[in-house]
């Protein structure tokens, strides 16, 4: 919440929030140690007429005036719960089914089965990493729960992971907790967003992570259990549960098991480098790259026989998605997007001698909408004009400011499909080396 940064600079603030989002705003502030001044307006504020929004302003104006001049901060001592390590032990009685029911009722699981995390099982899980159990991985938003290696192992047990998965799980969580991954945004938004985890390097085969046919789907133990463990850890330690502070209006399966797969390095066309090498790592490094995404879009192309035809179809396919770029949130135009080329589509492109750079530049040139398509009243119009100068209604606008922000990976197995992964606003890809 930007207002808290203003408070740190000595500027008092009053934040106007709607009834549906007041608790999220309060929780977000509280997670950062603040209980600032709020005025709550009946939901909604957006998508109503000018007369209605002005009337809402008039109805709460006395409260705004009061908050502006009468509200004063209350000084409270530091809030300290309990020691982060060792984690609290729960003494419970019952069957495995009973334990599952108790965990769910206490908000300690998602409602699908977990394996009860006994100290013995967690101890076995910790054998999969050289990291000490008391080490702190980070604080998980929005609750800002402290995450230790012991807790990572606890969630790994609950999700059914093997100890050999621990290094990858830890690296993925560390990457997701990097501030530029914007996990707070992904987990509290109204959008259907989720984490995506792409894995490269020797670790993929070492632990049996799927990277080919149906890699991100069912019947792959490593992918399923690590993906479940990532979400359990972030959701339970971070305290993000619907209907608030997880505000996703629909949610989806990736709230249970995140998108996770290995790049299909075996199917990289000759001369094309793996994704992690593109990002500056050595080919022999095991690397995890995470990004907060919207649900992917499937590009079905059974028909193109030249790269030009294929890129033309790509351009028309992703053009409707430009609505989630510049016109809505201009920040997305500065964010990397990910093109998950299926091996057959990649071969079509590379077989004609194209490099990844040629492909991304051709797509960037093709996937554009006229400036006249931007919605009237879009606040980003002014920002766009400031950046590029005057444009005409016919000026074609790309969905990223530069073609280099279209990252290309090889995703999945045989078939005439590829996938487009658009970033959630404010999310940048974060890579971490997997260390054992």
């Amino acid at each position: 919440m930007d207002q808290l940064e203003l408070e740190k600079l000595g500027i008092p603030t009053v934040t106007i929030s709607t009834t549906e989002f007041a608790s999220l705003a309060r929780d977000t502030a509280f997670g950062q140690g603040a209980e600032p001044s709020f005025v709550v307006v009946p939901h909604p504020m957006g998508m109503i007429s000018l007369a209605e929004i002005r009337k809402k302003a008039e109805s709460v104006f006395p409260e705004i005036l009061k908050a502006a001049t009468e509200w004063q901060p209350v000084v409270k001592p530091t809030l300290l719960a309990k020691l982060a390590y060792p984690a609290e032990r729960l003494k419970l009685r019952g069957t495995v089914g009973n334990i599952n029911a108790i965990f769910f009722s206490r908000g300690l699981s998602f409602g699908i089965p977990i394996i009860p995390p006994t100290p013995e099982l967690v101890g076995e899980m910790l054998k999969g990493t050289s990291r000490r159990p008391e080490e702190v991985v980070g604080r998980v938003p929005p609750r800002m729960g402290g995450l230790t290696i012991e807790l990572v192992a606890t969630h790994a047990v609950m999700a059914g992971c093997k100890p050999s998965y621990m290094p990858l799980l830890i690296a993925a969580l560390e990457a997701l907790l990097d501030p530029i991954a914007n996990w707070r945004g992904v987990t509290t938004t109204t959008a259907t967003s989720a984490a995506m985890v792409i894995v490269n390097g020797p670790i993929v085969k070492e632990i049996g992570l799927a990277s080919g046919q149906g890699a991100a789907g069912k019947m792959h133990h490593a992918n399923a259990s690590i993906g479940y463990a990532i979400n359990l850890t972030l959701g339970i330690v971070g305290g993000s549960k619907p209907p608030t502070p997880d505000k996703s209006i629909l949610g989806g399966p990736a709230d249970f098991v995140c998108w996770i797969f290995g790049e299909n390095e075996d199917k990289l066309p000759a001369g094309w480098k793996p994704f992690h090498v593109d990002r500056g790592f050595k080919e022999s490094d095991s690397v995890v790259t995470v990004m907060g995404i919207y649900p992917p879009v499937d590009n079905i192309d059974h028909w193109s026989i030249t790269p030009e035809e294929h890129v033309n179809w790509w351009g028309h396919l992703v053009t409707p998605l430009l609505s989630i770029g510049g016109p809505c949130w201009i920040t997305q135009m500065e964010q990397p997007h990910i093109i998950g080329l299926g091996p057959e589509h990649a071969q079509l492109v590379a077989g004609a001698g194209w490099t990844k750079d040629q492909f991304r530049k051709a797509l960037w040139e093709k996937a554009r909408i006229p400036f006249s398509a931007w919605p009237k009243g879009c606040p980003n119009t002014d920002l766009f004009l400031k950046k590029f100068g005057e444009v005409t209604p016919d000026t074609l606008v790309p969905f990223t400011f530069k073609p280099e922000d279209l990252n290309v990976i090889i995703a999945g197995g045989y078939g005439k499909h590829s996938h487009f992964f658009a970033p959630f606003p404010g999310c940048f890809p974060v890579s971490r080396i997997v260390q054992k």
Partner: protein
Amino acid sequence: MKLHGFIKDLLIALILAGLLGGPIDILAEEKIQDWELINPEGVVKIEIMKLTPHPSRLEGKTIMLRSNGKHNGDKFLIRVGELLKDKVKDIKIIYSWEVAPETVDPITGSHERSKKFAKKLASFKPDLVIASQAD
């Protein structure tokens, strides 16, 4: 035929058990036991942030109205600005989206960007910021 009858009886038994006791009771052989389990929730340690006192009067003050760009946030604040000018003498109103359009962003995304925005908004030296989250 015998096998068919057995399956039929089993199905009836399962349905009755489900109706009477729920699916867990079907597996009644599972032992009740005492468990010691690690609480997966983790703990929260929060350092209290010092907030800034509000002015007791707005006369002669500079008030910044800040919209994050979500629909109608600016319209709401424009009306608030009009009312403030009507009710408070010598008040100066600044609209953030006019003076600092680069701070219009519904999802700031990171503390670094938040800090950058706050620094920019603070450069106009407001005595108070009234911010709309909209939505």
